[in-house]
């Protein structure tokens, strides 16, 4: 009876391992399939875009993309300059005082 139990358990555990093996394989295969699909799509899209560019058709598509990227960059540029303007406007009183004193020293005769 006990031997029967152990054999039964062993079979169940073996089945569990086999199932895990297949699950693991599926996880990897799924990732692999996803990867292949997205890479294939990306390559196809890349070829399409390159071809369009070579034929100089659909220029507006590229220009719209460049425009969007440039807008993004311009936003950053504007942000940086705005920050600099704020820094200038918020120049400390101590620095202003120092500059005023420097001018007075230069204006008054030695």
């Amino acid at each position: 009876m006990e031997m029967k139990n152990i054999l039964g358990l062993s079979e169940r555990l073996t089945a569990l391992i086999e199932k895990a093996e297949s699950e693991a394989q599926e996880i990897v295969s799924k990732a692999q399939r996803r990867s292949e699909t997205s890479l294939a799509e990306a390559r196809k899209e890349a070829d399409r875009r390159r071809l369009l560019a070579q034929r100089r058709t659909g220029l507006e598509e590229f220009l719209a993309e460049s425009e969007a990227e440039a807008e993004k960059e311009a936003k950053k540029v504007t942000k940086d300059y705005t920050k600099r303007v704020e820094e200038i406007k918020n120049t400390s009183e101590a620095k202003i005082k120092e500059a005023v004193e420097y001018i007075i020293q230069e204006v008054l005769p030695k």
Partner: protein
Amino acid sequence: MSNEQMENKLIDKTIEQRNKMLEKANSEAATIESRTKAELKRIKDQTNQAIENILGGEIRAVHDRIVGGAQLQGRKLVMEARTEIISNVFEEAQEDLMKVIEGPKYKEVLVKLASESITKLDEDCIVYANKEDAKYLKSEMENLPIGHKVKIEESKEDILGGVTVVNMDGTKTIYNTLERRLKAARGRLISEVAEKLGVI
């Protein structure tokens, strides 16, 4: 070891083995995903580069128009802010100069200004100052440079502080008023002032 213990041990070991398998699979999947992302980026970058090579001029023009425009506008705003703060500093300096004129050390400054101009002109001259300053300078003749004939007169022009010195035939004039000196300093000191303010 009892049978029950043996069974438990066997179950634990099997579960551990299962978990390891799944963990390994998940890790492998994550590696695939990460490699895929890198490859996708490479494909995109390479394509963009290829397109840029083909359509470089047009793309650069778009970039220059938009980013260049933002840079131009940004630089303009920075320059305006810089000009404004420097102007404020010179305005404050002007106010401080007025305090100097009204202050106790001004008379000493006035004599120095007159002496400096007379020395520089190096000939007989007339020193013009406002009414009060002219009166003071007349009382300080012994402290002015010697060697030339010097006349002190009240200026017809509105001089807040300092002097204007003219040679006798009126061909040479030295403007040594504090307003003039400040004006001259403004042109000369802008970059130093900007540096002191940290707005260069």
